């Protein structure tokens, strides 16, 4: 065999290459083979084996006690009647389950490790890939089969079959049509409209503009939201924060849409729709607790930090004849997270 052929073979056969260099020293070390088995105490000393047997039995007995303990905990500890009882019961069941299951497991493992044979055995592997003969046979069978089916000879059947198979799953998609209505414009509209009163959330009750002091923040909903069929859907869009600031701090547009420094902004984050719940009175910043988008009320709720891109939409408000706050129109843009059609 020439040098090159041997090298090729070594490349193909991998790590057990035995090709030798000129000097007669092998190129690679040879696998020294399994080390001799070392006996455990239990293998040579019957007393040690007996001791191990008793240890296993002791663990399994503890497991039995644990199992009984679970039953006793469930039946014996009154569950209803306060957190203390529930907590005691849960702890007792948990501990007994631990003893029951863990000891059963440890017992079995200890048995295997101390008493079952621990001499390593060998299984031989076979390559996943078939032998050349097997592969050729398989190819021949497939060729014969497809010749019998005649797909190659009958392109008309082949092509229509591909078409039919490609199309048959498509109707399945349409079965899902009634899983929900089409979005329409419902992502862009809320129940706020001209004349909707602002009410406190969750207590209810209209808000007098004059009652609001500087630095106040009120969680607000549109009046009548609780009478809706699905109030949560509307709450997810219509929640509003009402804040009163020194009017000079606000931008002209912001002040104009407010009443004496009282402004209303959507509480739904323009990032992912969490409620923008944290208002820092000193800095006039609104912070969303979910992803920390920060909005500056003095800059018309522009994003000053974080992953949101758009300012919180402002709700234009006014006072009625009796001094109660109401919307002077709906939101001028969609509230909440962005979506494709939002524009």
């Amino acid at each position: 065999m020439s040098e090159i052929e041997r090298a090729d073979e070594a490349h193909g056969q991998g790590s057990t290459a035995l090709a030798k260099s000129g000097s007669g020293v092998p190129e690679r070390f040879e696998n020294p083979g399994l080390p001799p088995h070392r006996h455990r105490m239990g293998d040579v000393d019957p007393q040690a084996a007996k001791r191990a047997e008793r240890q296993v039995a002791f663990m399994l007995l503890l497991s039995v006690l644990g199992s009984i303990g679970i039953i006793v905990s469930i039946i014996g500890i009154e569950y209803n009647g306060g957190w203390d009882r529930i907590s005691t019961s849960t702890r007792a069941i948990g501990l007994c389950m631990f003893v029951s299951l863990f000891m059963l497991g440890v017992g079995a493992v200890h048995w295997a490790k101390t008493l079952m044979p621990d001499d390593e055995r060998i299984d031989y592997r076979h390559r996943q890939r078939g032998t050349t003969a097997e592969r050729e046979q398989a190819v021949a069978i497939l060729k014969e089969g497809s010749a019998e089916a005649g797909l190659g000879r009958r392109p008309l059947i082949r092509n229509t079959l591909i078409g039919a198979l490609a199309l048959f799953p498509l109707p399945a998609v349409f079965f899902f049509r009634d899983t929900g209505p089409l979005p329409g414009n419902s992502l862009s509209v809320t129940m706020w409209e001209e004349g909707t009163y602002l009410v406190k959330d969750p207590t209810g009750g209209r808000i007098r503009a004059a009652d609001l002091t500087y630095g106040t923040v009120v969680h607000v909903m549109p009046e009548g939201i609780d009478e809706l069929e699905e109030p949560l859907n509307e709450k997810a869009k219509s929640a509003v924060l009402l804040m009163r600031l020194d009017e000079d701090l606000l931008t002209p547009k912001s002040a104009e849409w407010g009443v004496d420094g009282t402004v209303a902004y959507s509480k739904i984050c323009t990032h992912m729709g969490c409620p923008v719940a944290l208002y820092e009175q000193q800095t006039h910043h609104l912070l969303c607790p979910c992803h920390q988008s920060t909005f500056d009320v003095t800059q018309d709720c522009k994003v000053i930090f974080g992953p949101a891109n758009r300012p919180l939409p402002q709700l234009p408000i006014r006072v009625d004849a009796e001094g109660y706050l109401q919307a002077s129109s709906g939101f001028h843009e969609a509230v909440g997270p962005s979506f494709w059609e939002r524009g």
Partner: protein
Amino acid sequence: MSTIDKAAGGVGNFADDTVGASKIVNGFARKIFPDHWSFMLGEITLYSFVILLFTGTFLTFFYEPSAAHTVYNGDYAPLAGQGVSEAYASSLRISFDVRGGLIMRQVHHWAALIFVAATVVHMIRVFFTGAFRKPREINWVIGLVLALLAVFEGFTGYSLPDDLLSGTGIRIAQAIILSVPVVGSYISFFLFGGEYPGEDFIPRFFTIHILLLPAVMLGLIVVHLALVVIHKHTQYPGPGRTEDNVVGFPLFPVYMAKAGGFFFIVFGVIALIAGLVQINPIWAYGPYDPSPVTAGSQPDWYMGWLDGAVRITPGWWEFTLFGFTFSMNIFIPTTALILFVMAAGALYPWIEQAATGDRREHHLLDRPRNAPTRTGLGVMALTFYVLLWISGGNDVIAHMVGLSINDITRFMRVAVFVLPALAFVVTKRICLGLQRKDREKALHGRETGRIVRLPHGEFIEVHAPLSEAERWVLVQHDANRPMDVEDRLDAGNPNSLYGKVQRRLSRFYFEDRVEPVTPAELAAAHHGHDTEIESQEHASIEEKQGDAAIATSQKYHG
């Protein structure tokens, strides 16, 4: 014959007559499984899945998958009389009124957290030891899909109690769906049955959580395990272990006792944690309402990295074009990131195959140091993951250490790109260093700590020679080298674009390398020792030897 023997004989006879049990026993009972602690990670995954099936079934007996309104009048006083959903009320009932209900819920939740964690750690083991190599590429991909499904399964599960925290999670999931270009709003409306949140998502998530995903996962797990049986388990290199055998203990009785016992150990430990450590106290969060939220809201741990990715993505990634909104500030760190991670993970076995040009089967695992580039890439990916995960808790960290949340976020925006690259370089260097240490040890033996003074006054440390078996572990591996043009003769034109990419890839992987000691090098090293003792010129020869070893590695370094 004793009664037991007779009974066993009867059962065995029946089993053989009806399903051919004797063939099954002959084929499988003495199958050999190798022993190693790291092989138990996959077992933990499997067992926690089984525990999830048990406890989940129990929970369905009491859980009401409905968003219908009801008034809570159960045992938990602070919520008495409050309007809640059936789902929330029944989750409270399980916790407060069903005997053993709370521990079942807690075992279920803890087992879910441990299930996903064990999946990830198992994948890390498989990656770093190269267990994904031929013929196990497909099983690696199946595992990857299972990991993704596990995350979805966990998410749909913790959404079901309909409490304030889980509702916040769903709100975020809905925003992720909305951010999908073109079809986002439609998917959202079809999934939620209209506007968010609506009343349909609870029964739908319930079906997905208890039927659809578990069924798919169970099917994939069966295939995953069947492939383990077909391929036979990988083993760590060692004396007597080759690519053609598997050394270990038989399934019956040793592995049945060990693996069966380990199931109970895992179950026992999860029960202990569940009994003592509270998880997801939904009664403290209150029912879901989209307008309030609690500060410091944190998802279950496995969602943390995506939450972190979202937190550090700057808002200006969103833009409007042709009248449509491209929410890339959400789409890229969520949907696109998941797809990227899945694609990179799924393709990795073939990327490495392209670099090595190696189409052989591998049943002996790599010691991670012997694959420095792979190990470096793995640590790089983990660093990226962990940094995103940390970013997901940026508010909690800012609060704990008293730093500005804005500074932490800005730091993370840079760190997620810089630190993984750094981790790659450092890890690769550490691997190469460890390989050099292995070379030293194979050539000169192990340090004994015994200092000897030679007659001429010099101090040397005596090195004890290694046994053949000890040395084998250090020298058994293949040394991959950058591919030469001629290596690719069988793979088509080496000057094609693919050929060029493959060669570059191969250089990237194997240009820096330390090759294992060969018998010739060992002989030369020993020869050196013999002469040096005779001539008592230990120092100068030892230096030469040292130089030679470094030169080898430097040459390969090149």
